[in-house]
């Protein structure tokens, strides 16, 4: 989850204190390039792909994945953003922020939607995202790419493309940012 969101969110509010650098900027770049190759391989190109970043943490990752796809295939897939705050089952616990815009560049009917998030945790964000995506059309398939899968799933959801599998304690926090991935805890 994006640091900004977490800060505003009871009961998690507090300051993020990192205790380990899990991935460096180079590691992230390599993981994203690998995921891009996997997306292309699995879908035989980029023909029907739409890359959708989940607000707010997934948006920069989606942007980088799309850039990587373009570097490899020479065409840029449409990139959109999706805010699932209003589709969540824990509404009221997390804030709805006006900066988190939903902006899908194209009709999703018949497309292959690659949802992108920074951290996969309980799976509840992705559940909400699947509901939201279905309100925008009927994609041929929906796939999931995440920078970090930290386990602790509460729903039957699994990612298709993973930057890094990271075993964590439940109370730890994973922060994906521009120059790396940190593992830490929130402190008051």
């Amino acid at each position: 989850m994006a640091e900004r969101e977490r800060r505003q969110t009871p009961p998690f509010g507090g300051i993020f204190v990192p205790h380990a650098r899990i991935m460096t900027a180079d590691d992230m770049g390599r993981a994203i390039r690998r995921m891009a190759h996997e997306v292309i391989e699995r879908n035989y190109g980029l023909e029907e792909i739409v890359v959708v970043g989940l607000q707010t943490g997934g948006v920069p990752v989606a942007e980088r994945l799309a850039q990587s796809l373009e570097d490899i295939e020479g065409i840029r897939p449409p990139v959109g953003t999706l805010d699932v705050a209003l589709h969540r089952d824990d509404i009221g616990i997390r804030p709805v922020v006006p900066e988190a815009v939903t902006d899908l560049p194209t009709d999703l009917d018949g497309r292959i939607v690659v949802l992108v998030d920074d951290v996969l945790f309980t799976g509840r964000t992705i559940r909400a995202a699947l509901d939201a995506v279905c309100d925008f059309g009927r994609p041929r398939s929906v796939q999931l790419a995440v920078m970090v899968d930290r386990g602790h799933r509460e729903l039957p959801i699994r990612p298709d493309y993973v930057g890094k599998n990271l075993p964590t304690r439940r109370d730890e926090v994973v922060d994906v940012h521009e120059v790396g991935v940190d593992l830490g805890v929130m402190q008051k």
Partner: protein
Amino acid sequence: MATNASAGHFLGIDGMARADLEEILELTTTFAEIGRRPIPKVPALRGRTVATVFFENSTRTRMSFETAARRLSADTIALSAGGSSLSKGESLRDTIEVVTSYGADALVVRHPMAGTAHRVAAWTDAAVINAGDGCHEHPTQALLDCYTLRERRGALDGMRIAIVGDIRHSRVARSDVLAFTALGAEVVLVAPATLLPPAVVGWPVTVAHELDLVLSDLDAVYLLRIQHERITEGLIPSIREYANDFSLTPERANRLPTDALILHPGPTNLGVEISAAAAADSRSVILDQVVNGVSVRMAILFLLLGSNRNLTGGAVEGDR
């Protein structure tokens, strides 16, 4: 999710800080986007019930509150004074208790007496939203007006806005004056002296009695309806004479700056406060106001019912 034991209310613009207004207006953008989706509906308020309790007629306010509630997946129940037990002599308080007993989480209240929404808020645990109380306030109208102006201009700061017509009986004017000035606009009230409220002296506005003298220097002109139902004495000689001096005719519209906006809260009495041609002018944003009304009311309903927020204070403890 449990019902809020002590819900927040939204009763008026009076007392709201600029930052509070801006927060609601910024959040409204999020809800406006939902209105443009192929399926304009999100499950945010699933299982919540919004009751519209209207003791006065309404087209826009009631329909837009109901539309807003449904776009958020809330259920709606409606009470109209005419068809209810009020006509059998039931008291307001009993009526409110009955509506709340049906599980209403929010009461959208319109009543011809000023202060009714505040009164109702003291009686109930549900969130109370003022949808117009007599000649006092109509806060969601003011928010949608501000949103419409911001949508076109980015900000209200430094805008010069004339509110023209029956200001004395207009709750819209009261809420608008408070909201426009809080957001940095300059407000000119234009009306015959008999249609100005007696207490206008303390308001942060200037007053003019001739529309023709202010037209050329406006960023927006806001026309109000003559409220025949509230005018009990001879405040204007005749509708025709009023229209001569204060109606936005095509000629007067031509004298407005080319980028000035024309607003009206509806319903319009074409030919009285505004001519059909001026209402259809390319600078008229009257239909934008109607569309934005739904988005603003979604934001208010969501803030009160979906986010455990009190609009007049900080965060309320989450129900975990």
